[in-house]
């Protein structure tokens, strides 16, 4: 007679017997540990721009003695419009089928779905140390990523000190929708590139459909001059272009990212824990955003006379020092962290994040959050370029590389669900502000807001339970 697997039988029989008597079963030494699921649904909404709906879950199966496997599936769908990099000007601008009215920031509508899966295996090596090995993969319409990571944590000094080291690598491939990876720093719509140094593309960029890359194929400039539809280009109307010649494979680029970290966690006293991490990251390969451009403006009037594709360096060395402290007040707990980040693109940033955990008793808690972030501009950030002036070696108008600061305020309310579960609701508001009127603005640019900034709100529902 083959009885059910031993551990399962004992637990099932104990549960059945207690069920018959209406009492709770006692914990058993070798009862199989339950599956732990922490899931969340996030709705992220920017003002006039991008909306993201993301569902994710950490599904952890303990294997006994501290060993566990965790699977993290994630699905998100991104819709809306994101800045093209071009600045607003006092005249209408048209990008393919999209026309941006005067004074408005040119945006490009798009939609995308991202499917990601993460796997991690945590294993104790001995009583005082454990290792975590993981792999992850994510797929989008125009971006795939696969990665591996590993970390080791060793306790010292009666477990008051923990030294951890971690390493992660990922290989990402970018396949811009539209099938073409644009040549950097190349003026749009003209067969001759403004910068003699960069080779002329064989044919002007041609685009797939309304979801195509932001690069227009025919522009009516402020002065009514039509640029585009160059000698070789076949202008397509209605934005339903063809992907170059039928059958040519979609162009793609790849980038490699390696991140390392050394961390020290120290118990300061019965109520205080501190952590200090130093991280180093090297990204290499295609780091440019294929969809972003810069406006070319007239040196005196500041009128937009054309657009040029952005180009970023193909390496980036990132470093950061991260410090966090957790302080247990009589009832509540404070989480405070500071991060200083710097890279060889010239960006310097400070981040302060504060969470105050109000313990309302019986596992109910309220957690307000306040985060302040500020960064300096990357060396090659330009809100726009002067037409005819010598081109820099790299240039990008991506607002995420500009000098800016952002405030985020959040509030989370959580309550217990059954014996081991939790249900929570969380909302945050983020506002980014930058230099709307830089000193080097020319002529009509002075009347424009060259850094419109960003306002975003999130609403998140969380559900944790044990199976």
């Amino acid at each position, binding site marked *: 007679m083959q009885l059910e697997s031993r551990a399962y039988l004992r637990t099932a*029989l*104990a549960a*059945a017997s*207690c069920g*018959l008597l209406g009492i709770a*079963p006692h914990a058993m030494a070798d009862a199989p540990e339950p599956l732990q699921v922490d899931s969340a649904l996030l709705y992220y909404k920017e003002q006039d721009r991008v909306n993201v709906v993301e569902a994710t879950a950490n599904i952890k199966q303990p294997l006994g003695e501290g060993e566990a496997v965790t699977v993290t599936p994630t699905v998100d769908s991104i819709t809306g419009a994101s800045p093209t990099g071009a600045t607003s000007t006092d005249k209408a601008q048209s990008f393919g089928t999209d026309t941006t009215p005067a004074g408005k920031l040119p945006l490009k509508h798009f939609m995308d779905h991202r499917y990601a899966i993460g796997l991690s295996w945590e294993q104790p090596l001995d009583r005082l140390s454990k290792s975590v090995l993981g792999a992850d993969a994510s797929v989008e319409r125009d971006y795939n990523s696969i990665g591996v990571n590993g970390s080791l944590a060793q306790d010292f000094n009666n477990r008051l000190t923990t030294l951890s080291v971690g390493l992660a690598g990922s290989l990402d491939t970018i396949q811009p929708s539209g099938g073409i990876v644009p040549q950097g720093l190349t003026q749009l719509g003209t067969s001759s590139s403004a910068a003699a140094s960069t080779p002329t593309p064989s044919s002007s960029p041609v685009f797939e459909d309304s979801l195509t890359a932001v690069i227009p194929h025919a522009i009516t400039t402020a002065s009514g001059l039509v640029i585009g539809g160059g000698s070789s280009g076949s202008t397509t109307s209605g934005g339903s272009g063809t992907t170059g010649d039928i059958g040519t494979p979609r162009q793609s680029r790849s980038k490699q990212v390696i991140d390392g970290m050394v961390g020290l966690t120290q118990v300061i006293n019965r109520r205080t824990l501190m952590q200090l991490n130093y991280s180093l990251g090297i990204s290499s390969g295609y780091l440019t955003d294929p969809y972003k451009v810069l406006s070319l403006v007239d040196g005196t009037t500041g009128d937009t006379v054309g657009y040029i594709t952005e180009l970023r360096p193909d390496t980036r060395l990132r470093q950061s020092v991260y410090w966090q402290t957790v302080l247990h007040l009589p009832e509540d707990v404070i989480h405070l962290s500071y991060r200083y980040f710097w890279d060889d693109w010239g960006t310097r940033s400070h981040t302060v994040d504060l969470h105050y955990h109000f313990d309302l008793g019986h596992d109910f808690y309220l957690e307000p959050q306040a985060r302040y972030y500020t960064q300096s501009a990357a060396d090659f950030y330009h809100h726009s370029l002067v037409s005819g002036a010598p081109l820099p070696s790299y240039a990008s108008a991506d607002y995420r590389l500009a000098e800016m600061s952002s405030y985020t305020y959040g509030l989370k309310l959580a309550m217990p669900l059954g014996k081991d579960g939790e249900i929570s609701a969380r909302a945050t508001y983020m506002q980014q502000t930058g230099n709307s009127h830089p000193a080097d603005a020319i002529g009509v640019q002075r009347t424009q807001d060259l850094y419109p900034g960003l306002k975003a709100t999130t609403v998140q529902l969380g559900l944790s339970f044990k199976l």
Partner: protein
Amino acid sequence: MHCERIEDGAYWRGSFTAMGSPCEILIDSDDERLANTLCKLVRDEALRIEHKYSRYRVDSVLSLINASRGHPVTADAETAQLLDYAEQCHRLSDGKFDITSGVLRAVWRFDGSDRVPEAAAVAKVLEHVGWHKLQWRNPVLILPEGMELDLGGIGKEYAVDRCALLCSQTAAVSALINFGGDIYISGPRRGDQTWIIGIDDPHAAGTTGTGALQLRRGGVATSGDARRFLMKDGVRYGHILDPHSGWPVSGAPRSVTVVAQTCVEAGMLATFAMLQGARAEEFLREQHVVHRCVR
């Protein structure tokens, strides 16, 4: 009902007979009035359960079910819970624990004689054995004609746990309830002392030979009874029957005693162990329970 003070043990003892076994309740208290209340409470509950589920009483719920001749019967809440439990144990034991196997007693009488039944006779009775042959969708049970339910493996242990529950709801006092060897201890005695339980040695029926158990809490049950067996041509046939074959389980120990959180669970683990036959000891070790296995 007889309730007396046991001076040397410093506890009160109530004793009565129910379910065909000697029953007793030991109460670790000096409060005579409380002892009497608990003794009466336990006796009433034991008799209630006996009247409700005894095969021998024509008006019992079990007899009504057994006489339903295939007509649907709606079970009350308590009976429904017991049937659910029996079904779960049937599944967990891969069909070896089956409360419809009671009818096999018609051909098997374990009186120490050598009257082992003919295979044909066993096969005939086997037609009325098999949980899968009845229909149980809580709360409605349809029992085909000729089949009978027998709560032998559950009834007494359930009564012990029920009585213990009623006692602990009435008074926070340590009590030991013993219905014919099925025992539940509600908690440590005063001064954090344990109750000591002797285990019958089947070889010498009635004397406590195989060492005692010291317990502060939990259920104890014994499966297997030295006095019920058949002996033919030098082969001993134990009284634990395999419902699939209708024959005694080969190589089963004479008796198995198990300690678990409740008496019902201890009894079922003991029964499962007996049904494992020769593998009984290995099964019990895997379950990480305290047990005594006597061959």
